[in-house]
């Protein structure tokens, strides 16, 4: 006996909406079973992992802080992925954006440069990320080089450049030779939305990016063009859409948003340049984009969910002394369940008996 997947012709919208919910419940049941096997209470784990972070104002804020870079990067990636272009290098574009923006922050450090610093830093970061994203796009359109490889490998190049800057030219001369820059001046620091809170304006940028993307994808010719390029490249060609300019455009957008996420994180959160400025956000955002089915609202929700698994995982370590491995396993189980649920909505599973096949 073997399985066969046949595409469903009529996909019920109700099923599509319910699928992620079912996936979540399944993931929690599996994780709960594992926790029960470990001799702990699954209900307490669920409480600590999900309910407490969602019912405590501090955790809710932390959720937003953690979700901000993920959402910003993932929404940018959705442009590429919709057009069937595989930008795996958001981590590098994030880093390059942070470098471009920080250049201004460090060069105005200690001066009385005023309010113009921060907006210009943000623009520079978008520029830096976009330019860096355009490298694999250019190599693809001009020489036909596979963008998966180039974008991925450029991640390591960007990280090495950051590493060099943090250890060399940008090192704080008063920092005992440790690889860190000076801490940014207030003029170069992304402010918090509320006083005494860690939620900074990056969260607003992410929301704006999501809204604008929803409008672009749903209501503009460019949005239609992306969809067509992804689903039916030949049709897109006949319609007169140049694959070349689409490639350049989506990589620039995606790189620009990743770059913005980079400076938002450095300026709003870390406050200085150091060799490590990301917690793999550029790669985690790929998961977020697909968990959100490349849909703007979906990505918003997915970024919060992924942020919740991090924060809940820390809670579980602190309050229940559950190991970190369990958190990571749970993240994997969750992704598997969501993908499996999606597959079952889109495909019919048949059990074919031996010999009955072609």
């Amino acid at each position, binding site marked *: 006996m073997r399985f066969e997947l046949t595409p469903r012709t009529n996909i019920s919208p109700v099923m599509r909406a319910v699928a992620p919910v079912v996936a979540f419940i399944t993931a929690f049941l599996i994780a709960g079973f594992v926790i029960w096997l470990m001799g702990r209470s699954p209900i307490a784990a669920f409480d600590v992992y999900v309910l407490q972070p969602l019912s405590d104002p501090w955790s809710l804020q932390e959720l937003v802080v953690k979700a901000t870079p993920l959402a910003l990067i993932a929404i940018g990636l959705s442009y590429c992925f919709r057009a069937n272009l595989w930008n795996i290098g958001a981590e590098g574009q994030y880093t390059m954006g942070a470098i471009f923006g920080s250049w201004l922050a460090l060069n105005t450090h200690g001066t009385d440069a005023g309010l113009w610093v921060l907006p210009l830093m943000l623009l520079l970061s978008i520029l830096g990320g976009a330019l860096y994203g355009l490298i694999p796009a250019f190599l693809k359109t001009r020489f036909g080089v596979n963008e998966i490889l180039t974008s991925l490998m450029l991640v390591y190049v960007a990280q090495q450049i950051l590493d060099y800057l943090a250890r060399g030219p940008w090192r704080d001369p008063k920092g005992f030779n440790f690889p860190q820059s000076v801490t940014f001046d207030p003029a170069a620091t992304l402010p918090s939305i509320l006083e005494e809170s860690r939620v900074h304006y990056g969260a607003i940028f992410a929301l704006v990016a999501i809204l604008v993307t929803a409008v672009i994808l749903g209501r503009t010719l460019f949005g239609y063009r992306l969809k067509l390029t992804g689903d039916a490249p030949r049709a897109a060609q006949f319609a007169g859409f140049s694959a070349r300019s689409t490639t350049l455009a989506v990589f620039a957008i995606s790189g620009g948003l990743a770059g913005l996420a980079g400076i938002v994180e450095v300026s709003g959160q870390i406050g200085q340049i150091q060799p490590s400025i990301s*917690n793999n956000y550029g790669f985690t955002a790929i998961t977020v984009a697909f968990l959100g089915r490349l849909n703007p609202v979906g990505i918003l929700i997915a970024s919060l969910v992924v942020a919740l698994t991090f924060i809940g995982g820390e809670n579980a370590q602190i309050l229940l002394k559950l190991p*970190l491995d369990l958190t990571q396993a749970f993240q994997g189980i969750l992704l598997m369940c969501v993908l499996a649920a999606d597959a079952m909505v889109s495909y019919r599973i048949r059990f074919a008996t031996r010999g009955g096949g072609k």
Partner: protein
Amino acid sequence: MFSGKVFGALAGAAVLALSAGGAVAQPKDKIKVGFIYVGPVGDHGWSYQHDQGRQAIEKAFPGKVTTTFVESVPEADSERAIEQLARTGHDLIFTTSFGFMEPTLKVAKKYPNIKFEHATGFKRAPNLATYAAKFHEGRYIIGQIAGKMTKTDTIGYVGAFPIPEVIAGINAFYLGAQSVNPDVKIKIVFANTWYDPAKEGDAAKALLDQGVDVLAQHTDSPAPIQAAEARGKFGFGQASDMERFAPKAQLTAIVDNWSDYYVARTKAVLDGTWKSEDTWGGLDSKMVVMTPYKNMPDDVKKLAEETEAAIRSGKLNPFKCPIIGQDGKEIECKGNGALSDEQVLGMNFYVKGIEDKIPQ
């Protein structure tokens, strides 16, 4: 017991002014102590040893102290984890990697009644103390052993990052080797990670391929010494005793012993006598411990034991002047007959004889 005041004047600008007295603490009956680790507790190196210290606290104060840890916390994303410990009723919080410095400082400012301790950093506050160990003392000893044991006159070093703590370790190691073997050469590879067994192992193999026959490491997993074991070469355990991973290769191990310090600081919080200070312990205070010298001839063993005793008694300082830099010029001697603590903690040069360049 512990040498203090390392950064006193230098760090002044960077550190919050110590307000007179700080918050006067009351003795407590029951406290919670939290730990933030940069790696997994199972790294069998750095984080593992901090966790041994945590377990020592649990044993020392049964029923009075409970402990918690959060492992594998990325440095750029650690503020939330530290604050979560602060919010969940912990009275004393240890953050155990250099990269946790700024986040720890931020959270410490927000929670003035909670005591914080940051390992290997230099920023303090009335409720934030710092502590580190003089690992370079042990590295001088293993340098001497390596200088004696090498047949190819080529010794190797797997470093994590080219930060002062690691550079000082490389210099101490090489100075030790040079002191017994003037012809010895050193090859250095930076793995750019504290903990990544695959990368560390590759770095070690690259060194062994270049004729290195004694290997030191300043990364946290046993992978480098295991690589030495597999090739029939020698190595040294890092942070914890790695003999069980490399019974034939391990000559000795430099063990980080945080237990005494952690127990003492926990007791200080219980007694209400905790103060923010800077601690830099070495062989004399048993914060750095050498495991038994094995797999070597008796004369090398005797030499190592003598050097260990000399450093412990203060007769020998690995960085005794004159120290000559790579360019052949003598380094200014700012301490008492040796480099000052500040010079060691901010070390950013290789000594004469090392042919590599510090990656910049």
